[in-house]
């Protein structure tokens, strides 16, 4: 699998993501600076990593979403390319309009940094195929603005089209319907607040992120 990881000023999970991608796919991803207007040729997966792009100025992800590299990601997604946005990357994808809704300040106002239990709600996409439907997995979260909100009809549509990918097993940050991650209409774009790239080896506390990178690699083969 050829992958690309976007890098913004303030990204801080880009290198963790690169390690996860290389470990599973066997290929180093290309790191793409936000000013680049095109993705490397032949890329199968574009990743928008976690962090605090542009210092979270204006709104989390707002400035990054308008960068040249994100315009390239939008074109890539429109052509059916696979896009993964984690944490700040999820915020960027919603700000860019690639996914519906918005991510707002956690209901309890705390920055939350801990492993959480998630329910796998979707197993048809290249992101969810490696999990059993309804499986409970553990991934770390680390965010201040993770409360997913959208209008009721948008939420109903997401549920109806089985586009809720992951749900918090317990109330975590006040997200509507405990949504932790959602898919685009074509199921090729996933945004999620928890960090699968931080759960790829037991010594780091778990390996529940591995199946996602494995099925993405298979999908690209």
């Amino acid at each position, binding site marked *: 699998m050829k992958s690309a990881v976007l890098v913004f000023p303030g990204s801080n999970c880009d290198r963790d993501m690169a390690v996860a991608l290389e470990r599973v796919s066997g290929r180093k991803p290309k790191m793409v600076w936000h000013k680049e207007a095109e993705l490397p040729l032949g890329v199968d997966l574009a990743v928008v990593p976690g962090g605090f792009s542009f210092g979270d100025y*204006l*709104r989390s992800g*707002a400035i990054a979403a*308008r960068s040249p590299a994100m315009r390239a990601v939008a074109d890539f997604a429109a052509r059916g390319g696979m896009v993964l946005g984690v944490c700040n990357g999820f915020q960027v994808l*919603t*700000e860019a309009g690639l996914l*519906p*809704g*918005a991510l*707002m*300040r*956690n*209901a*309890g*106002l705390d920055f939350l940094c801990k492993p959480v239990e998630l329910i796998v709600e979707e197993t048809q996409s290249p992101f969810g195929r490696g999990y059993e439907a309804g499986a409970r997995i553990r991934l770390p979260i680390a965010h201040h603005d993770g*409360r997913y*909100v*959208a*209008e009721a009809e948008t939420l109903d549509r997401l549920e109806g089209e089985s586009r809720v990918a992951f749900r918090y097993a317990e109330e975590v940050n*006040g997200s509507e319907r405990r949504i932790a991650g959602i898919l685009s209409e074509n199921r090729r774009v996933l945004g999620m607040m928890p960090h699968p790239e931080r759960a790829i080896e037991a010594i780091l506390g778990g390996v529940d992120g591995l199946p996602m990178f494995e099925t993405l690699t298979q999908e690209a083969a």
Partner: protein
Amino acid sequence: MKARVHVSLKPGVLDPQGAAVAHALGTLGFEGVKGVRQGKVLDLDLDETDPEAARAQVDAMCRQLLANTVVETWRVEILN
């Protein structure tokens, strides 16, 4: 020409920061604060000299960047 943009949360969008501010006001002894909604104000300094053109320009800026239309509304004020 100067313009001021007021960005506020749509009604019904939960505002835990506003709620925390309201709580703190109560702690200070200010009674009868029924609610606080936190927003933001942006002051823009523009080349444009026509008020209506400036308003249209700032409106477009709000739609594309300054506000998140999913959860926020805005009001544009032309200041001079």
